[in-house]
């Protein structure tokens, strides 16, 4: 009986830990609120999951932008990055002031280059996170 009780306690502890782990790690290509290294993911997780759904062997630059207040003004950002053959996909999140850029995995992402392209369009890139898929 004692053994059964101990087994039940151990099993329930293991079950309780698993959901917590899933909140902090990437799992089968779906990222949640925090990255594996503990850093906060600065983008809507649902939007991010939708963005990466058809992407493989890619790295995603999540760029935080100031002054991106209108759709019409942000069009230039999409046009500029789409001309880059290393860019697979781009998404603009006006509500959070973020741009998601999917690059080929082999491409070296340079923040200063991204900053310059955003500035030409009239906004300011403040910081960037890179996530490898």
């Amino acid at each position: 009986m004692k053994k059964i009780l101990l087994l039940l306690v151990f099993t329930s502890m293991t079950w309780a830990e698993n959901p917590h782990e899933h909140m902090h790690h990437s799992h089968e290509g779906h990222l949640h609120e925090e990255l594996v290294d503990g850093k906060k993911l600065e983008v809507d997780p649902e939007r991010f999951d939708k963005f990466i759904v058809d992407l493989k062997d890619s790295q995603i630059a999540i760029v935080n932008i100031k002054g991106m207040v209108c759709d019409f003004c942000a069009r230039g950002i999409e046009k500029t990055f789409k001309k880059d053959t290393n860019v697979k996909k781009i998404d603009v999140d006006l509500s959070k002031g973020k741009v998601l850029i999917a690059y080929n995995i082999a491409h070296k992402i340079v923040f200063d280059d991204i900053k310059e392209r955003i500035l030409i369009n009239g906004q300011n890139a403040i910081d960037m996170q890179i996530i490898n898929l």
Partner: protein
Amino acid sequence: MAFSDNIKNSIYYHYSPSYKYSVGLENIKDNYFKDDYSYVRFTYLLDRKNTEHSQRNLYFQSGISSKGFDEFFYGIHGDWETRRFFVGFGLKETKKKIQDYSEQYYQIGVAPYLGDYGDLHTWIMMKTKKNSLENKWSTYPVLKLFKGDVLMEFGYHKKTEWDVHLMYRF
């Protein structure tokens, strides 16, 4: 960009080699002086302030007429906008052989909903403008719509009639 009001109908093509300035050509059908001419235009960004939720701009604008170097205009225009609110103004002096004149406008707006990227975006605005030729203020509602690379702005006043502004981003 195409523009039409009680003073003029115009089509303006412009190119921005840098975010700081743009150059362009504006073809004008002048409704007040019954004349056709063009302006070679230059616009320069004097100041821009980007924050997390807003952008503020101040521009200098100028143009030289195809009628000669003694016919030209200059002015400033500016705006401040968030995703929800918009405030804008413009002041312009035009020098012509027949008669010089000045124009000014002030505009405020609110977005009734906040659309996502790619959605149809709508602004409901009020605009008030005055020129020294008619020397009276016209105040009227303006509806601004944009989706993708197309922007349309419609204003209507019973005396000055339609203000229409169409823009396409290439």
